């Protein structure tokens, strides 16, 4: 089975800081990681490869340093990694990103044969749009399965896939045809630790690096900032409220504190008492 996994290198947002004065992001020293959601898709891809044979390729569009993230996918077990990097791609929104990725995927298929499955993460933690997967699918004419919680069956012969997918209010069980695009839901598997030989292979591997030209991108005006219909007009910190909470002085003991607190709540919102009495008695 030939499988491609789209991954993205993202700043570890847990460690992002905002400059208290200028409100700009202080990027200095913020470590980067593989977008955590992508790892669930990578693991699922590796599982399928282990079962059916074949190969897993990882792909990212990003700055040269994104090669680190790709190398890591190889240390986890991917067979090949491709970095799409070029100044033409800078400043891309989701539409321009999906264009470049789709073009690169076409070139990958030309080079190493048709893909059976393409995986993306559910969403990224920096862009956080969950749109790149559906966009890539649309551009490549792939059937699309997002929020997948389980791959029930993948039949290489019949070229059929059965999956479970999280929907509002329940789980859909869907059957579709390969090739298709799958975005796994988080927490659906546990990403493996590659072996020492995976690590050594990854450390020695050449990350295949493609410019726009290498990837045979047809229309450069559809890439990067140029190809992006959306623009970020301004970035700002959430408004600060100037008034703080009205503080209630704690009483002598917890019981007193509870009483004064309840008093304060109902004084502020008189209607609440009635509502809550109803709620408490199970209306």
């Amino acid at each position, binding site marked *: 089975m030939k499988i491609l996994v789209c991954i993205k290198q993202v700043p570890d947002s847990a*460690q992002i*800081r905002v*400059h*208290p*004065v*200028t409100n700009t992001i*202080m990027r*200095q*020293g913020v*470590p980067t990681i593989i977008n955590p959601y992508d790892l669930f898709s990578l693991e699922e891809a590796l599982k399928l490869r282990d079962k059916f044979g074949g190969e897993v390729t990882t792909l990212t569009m990003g700055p040269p340093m994104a090669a680190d993230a790709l190398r890591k996918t190889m*240390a986890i077990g991917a067979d090949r990694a491709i970095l799409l990097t070029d100044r033409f791609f800078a400043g891309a929104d989701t539409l321009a990103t999906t264009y470049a990725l789709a073009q690169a995927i076409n070139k990958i298929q030309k080079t190493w044969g048709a893909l059976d499955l393409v995986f993306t993460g559910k969403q990224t933690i920096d862009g956080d749009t969950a749109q790149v997967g559906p966009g890539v699918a649309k551009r490549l004419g792939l059937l699309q399965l997002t929020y997948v919680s389980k791959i029930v069956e993948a039949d290489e012969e019949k070229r059929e896939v059965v999956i479970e997918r999280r929907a509002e209010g329940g789980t859909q069980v869907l059957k579709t045809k390969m090739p298709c695009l799958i975005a796994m839901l988080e927490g659906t598997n546990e990403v493996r*630790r*590659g*072996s*020492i*030989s995976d*690590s*050594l292979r990854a*450390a*020695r591997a050449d990350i295949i690096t493609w410019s726009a030209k290498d990837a045979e991108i047809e229309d450069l005006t559809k890439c990067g900032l140029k190809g992006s219909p959306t623009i970020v007009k301004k970035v700002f910190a959430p408004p600060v409220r100037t008034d703080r909470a009205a503080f209630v002085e704690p009483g002598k003991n917890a019981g007193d504190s509870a009483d004064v607190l309840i008093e304060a709540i109902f004084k502020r919102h008189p209607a609440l008492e009635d509502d809550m009495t109803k709620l408490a008695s199970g209306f």
Partner: protein
Amino acid sequence: MIEEKFDAIVIGAGMAGNAAAYTMASRGLNVLQLERGEYAGSKNVQGGILYADMLEKIIPDFREEAPLERHLIEQRFWMMTDRSHTGMQYRSDDFNEEKPNRYTIIRSQFDRWFNKQVQGAGAIVISETTVTELVSDAYGKVIGVRTDRAGGTVFADVVVLAEGVNGLLGARAGLRPTPRPEHVALAVKEMHFLPRETLEARFNLHGDEGVVIEAAGTISKGMTGMGFVYTNKESISVGFGCLVSDFAENQETPYGMLENFKKHPSIAPLLEGSEVKEYAAHLIPEGGFNTIPELFGDGWVVVGDAAQLNNAIHREGSNLAMTSGRLAGEAIFQVKSRRDPMTKQNLALYKKFLDDSFVMKDLKKYKDMPALLHTQAQNFFLTYPTLVSKAMENFLRVDGTPKIEKEKASVRAFREKRSLTGLFGDAWRLARAWR
């Protein structure tokens, strides 16, 4: 599985490990470096000051792209009581030289950069991999390492232990004793972020100039320890460290001590309005010369903190780590070039290099200091600072008391607390230890 064999395996990607791996890889040896953290430096802690000279010997043009924070132009030593500090301060424009001598750094960034150079030099680096055990042959010669990854044994002619102060592997393999609580300090550290302009105004700095404050006194509550404040580009590193044995005896927590230090009236205004990010705790070997373990054996050498190579008195560690790493790398390269086996006898070359360097010479010079500071902790950290502070206050307060009486009062205070012979005794012991 195909067996993998390297010329050398380096355990750890801290200062010592990176220096060793770089030295060997850049000379063409086939090097594997293993690091348990997510990436080199991810878990490493330092105040931290980088001493340029020792790095220059490894990467001469490091200033061009290494992530350096500020070069130091000013050093403040503060002797503290609960409400005051008496300071000595040295600032010189001469430190604004073309190739400054000391820099503040942030280890997680610096180590990462250093490790990239190691990779650039041709070493293979694998992170998120913990070495669990040294592998020896029937004769006790170390021939490789086992890791916590599947298929995890890798072989090499020589293993460089650069695993830092805990030195679990060395201890487990019986190559060194586990450090004792009175020989290690536990330091905790926080990063306080401030807008650059505020920071520079507060510390009287221009451009990339930096200041270091080292503080001791009653803030350690009679224990052997000290606090520090280092300026980075947009943040201040504030930390506090004490001997592990003291924490245990005095039922104090490192974090409590740091909180206390931060609230000190001389420190608090420096940190005001900052945003705290990152809290770290780390051990520092403080036993000095007398606690240095065996440094080499059949198929192995040990470098950096793992070998207790740390000059606690001068707060130097990373430079000794880098130098020992480099010298180990050079020794191994020489043995290898002669096509000699990595036996204990041949690896003695490393010890010889080390003895000839400042590392062993400095550590020997201060060999009695750690013990002295420990036994005289009450005096050094409680009594003297209080006396000095009292004297200063007495001297400065203009209240109509004749100066001569003020002087007498101060001398009396010194005598009451500590007999003159005691004072002289301490001074004498300090001088001897220093010598």
